[in-house]
């Protein structure tokens, strides 16, 4: 008998009497999916929020936020940057990126999380090897809580997807909170609709 069949047979033999699967409500509450609630959650998780530039020039905004940045790589055509992501051959090539830019699919007001998939990153390591990450988010694309977030069912057909909430962090030594553990050191959300000027 293969290990597979052996394990499954033992599980089947030992399973207790069946119990029902409950329905999961969405627990809607005020203030629901508001941008303000989302921003508060982002800040709490160590993220930052930047107002969109009045003139719509996002490259200019990145220049102001990160004056020392040498390599800027954008996965969204709304920004030019100086490292075209279409030319990246290996995931490790993004190790020298100072600032990565990407547009999130939607945000979660409860936690300040941003949903991103391989389609948004184009190269997944952009969200982890870059020192800093700037995430554009359409303010009309904020859901109230994680129940709603997980009901965006089609999103979970992505090969890879992540709820990113603030920068990478650790408190493994004496509980001291460090932002910038192994991945991005800062995460800045810019609430701006796609193609808005």
């Amino acid at each position, binding site marked *: 008998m293969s290990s597979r069949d052996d394990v499954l047979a033992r599980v089947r033999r030992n399973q207790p009497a069946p119990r029902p699967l409950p329905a999961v409500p969405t627990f809607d509450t005020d203030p629901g999916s508001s941008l303000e609630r989302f921003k508060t959650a982002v800040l709490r998780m160590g993220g930052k929020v930047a107002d969109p530039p009045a003139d719509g020039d996002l490259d200019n905004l990145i220049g102001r936020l990160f004056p020392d940045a040498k390599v800027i790589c954008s996965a969204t055509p709304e920004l030019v940057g100086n490292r075209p992501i279409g030319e990246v051959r290996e995931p490790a090539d993004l190790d020298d990126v100072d600032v990565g830019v990407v547009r999130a699919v939607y945000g979660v007001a409860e*936690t300040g999380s941003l949903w991103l998939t391989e389609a948004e990153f184009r190269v997944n390591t952009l969200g982890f090897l870059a020192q800093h990450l700037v995430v554009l988010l359409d303010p009309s694309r904020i859901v109230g809580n994680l129940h709603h977030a997980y009901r965006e069912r089609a999103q979970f057909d992505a090969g890879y997807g992540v709820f990113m909430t603030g920068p990478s962090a650790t408190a*493994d030594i004496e*509980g001291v909170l460090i932002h910038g553990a192994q991945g991005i050191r800062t995460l800045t959300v810019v609430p701006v609709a796609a193609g808005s000027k």
Partner: protein
Amino acid sequence: MKRIDHAEGSSKFIKAKDHLDFHDKRLWDLRKKRDRESEHLPEWEELRTLASAIKEHTLTHLADYLEEFERNATRNGAHVHWAKDAAEHNQIVFEIMSARNARTLVKAKSMLTDECEMRPFLANRGIEVMETDLGERIQQLDDEPPSHIVVPAVHKLKTDVARVFSENIGTDPKNSDVHYLAESQRQHTRPYFLKADAGMTGANFAVAETGTVVVCTNEGNADLSVHLPKLYIASIGIEKVIPRIEHLGVFIRMLSRSALGSPITQLTSHFRVPREGTEMHIVLVDNGRSERLGMSDFWYSLKCIRCGACMNTCPVYRRSGGLSYGATYSGPIGVIIDPTFNLRKYSSLPFASTLNGSCTAVCPVRINIHEQIYKWRQIIAERHQLPFVKQQAMKVAGKVLSNPKLYRAAVEGAGAGIEHLPRFTIYSRFNAWGKQREVPSAPQFTFRQWYVKNRGKK
């Protein structure tokens, strides 16, 4: 196999007073943060009930859900392997790696691979394993197992970390600044991510409906371990399966709130399809779980989502440290899981509890932990796994507690004893209650004496 002596392990931990005090405070702080989060969610108790019911449903249909998970994961392009036990798990991982000539493995934290003792197995076969979670890395470099399932090095102070890092990764031994230490690890680890042949994670959840592996982390190391190498291996205990994507909403809302008191982990990653030109392997591991599923009193422990809330709240765990349990899983959840692996070896662990029920009260999936601890004590006593001294003490206690006259005489005598016995008889090695504490002064009279005097006539 040698029986773990939890009391002896604890006494070592208690001797280092600054460590003990910090450990106690740090974990209680996590418990308080957890309380604050749960109190902010009006539906918290309902979420616990839902989480428990979803897990119980899944476990009572586990074989079907495992097959569904396997089917979907295979359709996604992942390779699914099955391991009966730890040895088979380790062998499978080794064969996957050696067949592709992979010599280096960067890995995220996984209690399962600790349970399987995978690291030494691979190291003996020439594979370099790099733990990339900061706490787990500290423990790897110090050649110790994790002492906590969420914060593996919580029993160490920053000066301990400074020593471990200076001996192993060349940091300044005198510099114990936490920012410096964390940054040093970041700089040291990054090149390993960039050149590793393979990456590995555990799983917090495996979704049957989609074949998705869900990993909750804060440091970014799990994603770096998956997105850089050409080979990704996920080791998953069979109890981690849940039916559908929407169920994640319930569990993700509670996991980090229970563990660290934060609303969510910085990263909740969903790995489903290997990226182009790479391979994804999933090893589904039994290692005693299917047997536990058939234990009518204990199968509920399989609901555990490994948040560690029961450890943070446990007064015994906070004051004895995870290493004193001598097992992969420590604290209250360890106390009820470990004896299923080896009853004799872990027979002292169910006694490392005050049975105060706090573990049960904070458990996000409503495992009746303290009741299970009590049941393990009964089994251990029935199977004569109690140490001789405890057996004799229990016999005396049984006689005294079943006879009211004897009981009253004993209580009155104990009160008088505390007041009048010389110190050396109370604070001696024969009286465990006099260790590391002052015995409180005895009341003027017993409750019964008070009751007879004040209420007895009515």
